[in-house]
């Protein structure tokens, strides 16, 4: 999987490479043609001039000899890098001059062109401007230009002299070298262009990827709950449009989440307010029920007892409702103190007359920094549940703990009852959840375990239901010292 950056860079590089290759190819081709044409023209002109100057206007009425042709040949090859042949029809009528290019043959096609088409009387042609032919050949990797032309000598004594043929071979090595040099610099230029293109591609990728990355970070922030997260949406391009869409979606999300939270908050506030309002009459009721219970006689005593009992229940329930609404609202405060934890456990059990009913296994001398009231609340809830719903023996075990998150304390409350059914295990910490659906009315508020867990979490710890073969075991883990939360 290649990233956006890789794809952009690859595309840029490919385009740059292709463009510079095409441009360089065309340029090379044009330059090569121009160069060759110039060389050809120069050579042809040179040959024409040389012939005009060196071919004598009148010939001695003799047969052709190399002596006669030698000056022409020399003149044709006077520039370096050239070789010339001048051939006559008579035996001995030939001459060669200049550099000797070994292994070279005058191409037959050129010779045929110079000699003219078809069977005809070569001597019947009148003297006129030279027909000059040329052909490029290559030998052992060296390019050559071969120029050939028939030369018509003037007539002497009423007859035409036999025509001669002049050939010049020009080495194109210098031009080849020039072209090679040019090709190399064009290639270097293309390489530089590709490098520049790559840099541009990286820049372009960055300008595309930066907003993409910002969007990604913003989306992540939004997902993590930072609903106020927005991105900078300047410009008119597609990415800016995407950013604007993101912003408007985030706004809509924030609005609906805010609304939901507001609804939840007001629902919780309602619970808190109702509980609070209920407490004032409860204060009055609590103040007088003792008297009622103590002084009522006969059948009124039963009624008074019932009222007193229900008042106590109501007090527990409202206390729990207020407790959980404060925990929910984040308004619950830890009142930490350094306490002797095993002593606290013993006292907590003794206060509720549970000392005889519960077996304890407490590590001695364990000082911990906890909120004693909240610790007591957790312990009382766990032991109360074990005694109420489980079977004896109920044990409380207190240990130091070093795992999983540093030093802490571990408190286990176990009973020997039938345990909690598998499908019910994940519900035990839920509010108002009861193991037995038929039992619509229990002695508890239905909030005890939820409050216990919230209190554990308030300490930075946790309360879990352990997986055991028999009975029910809850485990409380608290960091010690506690993690101070801001």
């Amino acid at each position: 999987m290649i990233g956006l950056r890789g794809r952009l860079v690859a595309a840029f590089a490919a385009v740059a490479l292709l463009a510079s290759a095409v441009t360089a190819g065309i340029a090379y081709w044009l330059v090569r043609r121009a160069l060759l044409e110039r060389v050809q023209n120069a050579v042809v002109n040179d040959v024409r001039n040389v012939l005009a100057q060196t071919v004598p206007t009148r010939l001695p009425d003799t047969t052709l000899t190399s002596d006669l042709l030698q000056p022409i040949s020399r003149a044709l090859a006077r520039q370096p890098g050239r070789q010339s042949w001048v051939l006559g029809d008579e035996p001995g009528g030939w001459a060669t001059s200049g550099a000797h290019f070994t292994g070279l043959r005058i191409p037959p096609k050129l010779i045929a062109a110079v000699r003219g088409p078809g069977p005809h009387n070569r001597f019947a042609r009148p003297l006129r401007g030279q027909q000059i032919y040329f052909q490029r050949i290559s030998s052992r990797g060296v390019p050559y230009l071969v120029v050939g032309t028939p030369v018509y000598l003037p007539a002497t004594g009423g007859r035409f002299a036999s025509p001669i043929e002049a050939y010049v071979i020009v080495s194109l090595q210098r031009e080849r070298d020039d072209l090679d040099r040019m090709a190399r610099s064009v290639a270097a230029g293309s390489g530089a262009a590709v490098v520049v293109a790559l840099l541009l591609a990286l820049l372009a990728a960055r300008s595309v990827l930066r907003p993409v990355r910002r969007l990604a970070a913003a989306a992540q922030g939004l997902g993590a709950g930072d609903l106020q997260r927005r991105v900078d949406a300047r410009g008119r391009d597609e990415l800016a449009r995407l950013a604007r869409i993101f912003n408007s979606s985030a706004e809509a999300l924030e609005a609906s989440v805010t609304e939901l939270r507001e609804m939840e908050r007001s629902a919780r506030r309602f619970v808190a307010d109702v509980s609070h309002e209920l407490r004032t009459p409860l204060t009055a009721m609590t103040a007088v029920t003792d008297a009622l219970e103590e002084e009522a006689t006969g059948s009124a005593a039963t009624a008074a007892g019932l009222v007193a009992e229900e008042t106590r229940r109501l007090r527990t329930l409202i206390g729990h409702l207020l407790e959980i609404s404060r925990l929910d609202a984040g308004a619950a405060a830890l009142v930490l103190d350094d306490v002797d934890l095993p002593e606290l456990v013993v006292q907590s059990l003794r206060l509720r007359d549970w000392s005889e009913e519960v077996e304890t296994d407490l590590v001695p001398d364990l000082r911990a920094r906890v909120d004693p009231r909240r610790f007591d609340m957790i312990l009382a809830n766990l032991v109360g549940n074990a005694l109420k719903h489980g079977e004896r023996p109920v044990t409380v075990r207190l240990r130091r703990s070093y795992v999983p998150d540093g030093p802490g304390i571990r408190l286990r409350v176990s009973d020997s009852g039938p345990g909690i059914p598998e499908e019910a295990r994940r519900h035990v910490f839920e509010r108002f959840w009861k193991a037995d659906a038929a039992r619509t009315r229990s002695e508890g508020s239905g909030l005890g375990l939820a409050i216990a867990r919230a209190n554990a979490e308030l300490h930075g710890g946790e309360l879990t239901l352990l997986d055991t073969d028999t009975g029910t075991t809850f485990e409380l883990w608290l960091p010690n010292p506690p993690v101070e939360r801001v």
Partner: protein
Amino acid sequence: MATILLVEDDPSARAGLEFALTRLGHSVTARETGELGLEQVRTQRPEIVILDVMLPGIDGVEVCRRIRAEDSLPVILLTARSDDIDVVVGLEAGADDYVVKPVEPRVLDARLRAVLRRVERAPGDRSTHGDLVIDRGTMKVRRAGQDVHVTATELRLLLELSRHPGQVLTRQQLLASVWEHDFLGDSRLVDATVQRVRSKIEDVPSRPKYIETVRGFGYRFVAS
């Protein structure tokens, strides 16, 4: 058996508490606002004041503060929540104890009797520590020859600490001995009272030379 001023704005709670306290043998005067309560304190001084924190007009904490400005009359706050910020503010204002509503009459009675016991004088109970003289007989503390006004609770705390010089007392121990609370007493009572005592007897309360804090344990009185 004490004369009590109850300041509570809710009529039924006021009536209920007045009934319960009277039934327990106390002589109760009930008032519905802080202003009326303060007026009552001036005209007919009770032995102890039970103050609701949430009152219309000036609230319970402010009433407590105004009472403390003039004398060391014992004050118990009636609060809605134990972890309310009001509790801390009220304790800083000089309240001797607090109870959470709805309170059982037995609990309230035990608390106010405990507070009143602190006011009892014990002739001859007098100790000197450096330039500090603590006299339970006269309920007075003298520091470098100057009288220092302390409440009964502050005096008891000072006595408790100075009785065990050099020994660390935990907050739980102090709550049991001074406040007569069970083990679940609120340690903030101790902290707030220690702060108040320090501000009265120490030269630099932030660098105390009499009452030291022992981190992780409690407090220690330093014998000079």
